[in-house]
């Protein structure tokens, strides 16, 4: 693996004694009395001095101060010490400070161990037990330090090339942002068009941006960017590798219908901008350093009979209605006409295929319930209603909702405007949903609803049209999920590592999330996620390499017997595998670590019957040494007499 340089300059296996004799320096901080008021710092220093492997032990009023750090650096430079133990406050505060000091003095920052004697000793224990505990903790740190080998961060060469899967607003935004950072980007899209779900919309809620205009602009930028290669009607057919070097195979997708009359680059209403099709024939293969998933969503397809859908031509979905509304001409009588059919009144039913409740809703053909809220439909419905009322004031609109979720900026105001425009809102409980009934009256359909706003009365709404505000479902990307080994949540959307810590990242390092493949969101939210993903991927690729913690598993080839126990225990698939090796003319299986994929958890170390695998910097031997030192009386043996005389109130003694 030439591109993976796990450099351990000591070159020592994880076990056994390091080649260079350990010369440990122990540096104990008074912390201006915070430690020394309760821990007899001088007594501890004397004890440490006599510990095996310790060549020097010093104290300082403030070890983190410049003079404190200087004393450490001088000892390193003079060769007096080659391993450092600092006993002071919590490592979260100053571990990096001291590691940096060691590096400045030319030492290896990983030959360092920290003993926490403030937060975990002097602030919680008093008197002799505090001094005792500090002694044992510092001894333990020294015990570990003896076994520390020099480490360097793992460098993984990174291809300055990214793959974006999906050509909707999220995919396009991500590709443009990657390209802007100088990253060569391949965007693949299954359909012939760029634009995704956005291309089907009209004026966007609540500010009225023109969806087609946005799609045109983004696609135009994509197609003219020299760093972006667009592959429409293309599929990912093979995937492997790891962060920095994913191997990718793109094949032409089976042909779907495309607008014959449109030229590449042209906008086709309701579909998007026609993009360059993947050339038929052999698959295209290349390496990419990072991948952005932007595979978008599918619109929920109502079941036959759901609110009259399928049984009545007058029941349509909201996306369909928005498309028809786009083309509707204003009439002198102010009434909406779909085709030649006048629409005197229409009802929009919310939460169709969203917020489904087990026991109340029936599972669809997918065998799943959509328990999630689709987030965008309330605003989209009200936006459509408002458009109707303003453009076709003779047409009446009813909105039947469970909760109005106009959460976004300007959306609540839009809801108020719709009210002012006399859209009639009715609220139903999920347990008694509205019914759509065909009637032989003046109107073809009647919506019957138990309206909670009218004290639970049953109301009848005569309508010419029923619009179902269908929600978002995950797009059918089973193949990608399997190929990239992506985690999926209970809602079947792709599952991020952590919604707040790492919202656009996946456990697979180097693969990012953008847009509605993760959860329902609107265009702006998808754009944010895409930019965020592009920032993360860009930071990774722009340097040309990825630097990873050196705390990864390491195999001792001398001990490994190739049992494969570690491979079974490994939590991150691909981090460990068995590889055929020739040893003494004999072909044997040996465990091999892919450091770029190793998380450093140590699950492997626990199960190896030979003790042949360990996590660098956190080895089992080191822990065993620490336990031994905590239990050891060695530190006390020499100074036992003095320690007896240690004041029971070391507070005075220390200042």
């Amino acid at each position, binding site marked *: 693996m030439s591109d993976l340089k796990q450099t351990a300059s000591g070159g020592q296996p994880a076990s056994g004694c390091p080649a260079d004799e350990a010369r440990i320096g122990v540096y104990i901080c008074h912390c201006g009395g915070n430690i020394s008021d309760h821990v007899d710092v001088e007594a501890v220093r004397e004890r440490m001095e006599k510990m095996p492997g310790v060549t020097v032990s010093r104290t300082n009023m403030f070890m983190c101060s410049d003079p404190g750090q200087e004393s450490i650096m001088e000892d390193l430079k003079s060769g007096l010490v080659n391993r450092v133990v600092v006993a002071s406050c919590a490592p979260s505060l100053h571990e990096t400070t001291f590691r940096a000091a060691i590096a400045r003095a030319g030492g290896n920052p990983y030959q360092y161990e920290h003993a926490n004697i403030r937060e975990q000793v002097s602030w919680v224990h008093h008197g002799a037990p505090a001094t005792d505990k500090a002694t044992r903790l510092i001894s333990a740190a020294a015990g570990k330090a003896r076994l520390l080998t020099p480490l360097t961060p793992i460098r993984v060469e990174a291809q300055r090339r990214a793959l974006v899967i999906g050509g909707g607003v999220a995919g396009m935004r991500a590709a443009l942002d990657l390209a802007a950072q100088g990253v060569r980007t391949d965007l693949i899209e299954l359909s012939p068009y760029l634009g995704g779900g956005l291309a089907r919309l009209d004026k966007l809620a609540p500010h009225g941006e023109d969806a087609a205009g946005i799609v045109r602009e983004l696609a135009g930028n994509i197609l003219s960017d020299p760093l972006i290669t667009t592959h429409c009607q293309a599929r990912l057919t093979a995937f492997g590798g790891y962060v920095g070097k994913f191997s990718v195979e793109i094949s032409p997708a089976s042909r779907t219908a495309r607008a014959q009359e449109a030229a590449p680059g042209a906008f086709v209403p309701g579909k998007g901008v026609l993009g360059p099709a993947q050339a038929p024939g052999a698959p295209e293969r290349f390496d990419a350093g990072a991948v952005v998933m932007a595979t978008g969503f599918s619109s929920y397809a109502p079941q036959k009979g759901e609110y009259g859908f399928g049984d009545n031509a007058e029941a349509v979905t909201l996306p369909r209605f928005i498309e028809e509304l786009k083309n509707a001409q204003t009439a002198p009588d102010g009434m909406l006409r779909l085709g030649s059919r006048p629409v005197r009144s229409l009802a929009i039913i919310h939460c169709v295929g969203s917020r489904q409740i087990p026991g109340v809703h029936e599972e669809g053909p997918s065998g799943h319930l959509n328990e999630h809220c689709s987030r965008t439909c309330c605003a989209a419905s009200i936006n459509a209603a408002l458009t109707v009322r303003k453009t076709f004031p003779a047409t*009446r609109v009813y909105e039947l909702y469970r909760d*109005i979720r106009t959460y976004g900026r300007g959306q609540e105001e839009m809801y108020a405007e719709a*009210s002012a425009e006399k859209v009639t809102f*009715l*609220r139903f409980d999920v347990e008694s949903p509205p019914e759509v009934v065909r009637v032989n009256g003046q109107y073809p359909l009647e919506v*019957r609803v138990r309206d909670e706003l*009218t*004290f639970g009365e049953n109301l009848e709404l005569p309508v010419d049209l029923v619009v179902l505000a269908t929600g978002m479902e995950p797009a059918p990307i089973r193949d990608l999920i399997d190929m990239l080994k992506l985690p999926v949540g209970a809602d079947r959307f792709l599952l991020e590592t952590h919604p707040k810590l790492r919202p656009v990242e996946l456990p697979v390092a180097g693969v990012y999330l953008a847009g509605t493949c993760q959860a329902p969101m609107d265009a702006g939210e998808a754009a944010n996620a895409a930019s965020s993903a592009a920032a993360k991927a860009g930071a990774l690729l722009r340097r040309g390499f990825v630097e990873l913690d050196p705390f990864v598993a390491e195999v001792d080839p001398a001990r490994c017997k190739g049992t494969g126990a570690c491979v079974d225990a490994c939590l991150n698939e691909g981090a460990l595998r068995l590889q055929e090796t020739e040893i003494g003319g004999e072909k044997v299986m040996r465990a091999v670590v892919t450091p770029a994929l190793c998380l450093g958890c140590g699950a492997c170390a626990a199960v190896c019957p030979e003790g042949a695998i360990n996590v660098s910097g956190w080895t089992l031997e080191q822990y065993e040494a620490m336990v031994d030192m905590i239990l050891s009386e060695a530190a006390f043996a020499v100074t036992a007499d003095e320690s007896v005389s240690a004041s029971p109130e070391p507070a005075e003694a220390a200042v």
Partner: protein
Amino acid sequence: MSAVNPAFLDELEAYGENAGALCFNCGTCAAVCPLDGGHFPRKMIRYAQIGAVDRIREESRELWRCLHCGLCTQTCPRGANPGEVILTLKRLFAAEWRKS
């Protein structure tokens, strides 16, 4: 069951600037109304929104219990001016009576 007739709001607008379209039925007005108890005045506003004019007519005497104190208007979170809606409805019936 009663059929809904949103056109009633348009008719009502002839009797006042505010016919209650803005109301989002939060119930603040009914809760603060000193007439205590019941759904008044939201009930009337809701009936107006759905055009249940017969219901309003049936219960029209309720309208004249209103003290015109304005607390509902002061506290309405949507600026729907419930007090003015009640007054508008009073005007509608008063005008009808005058004609008859």
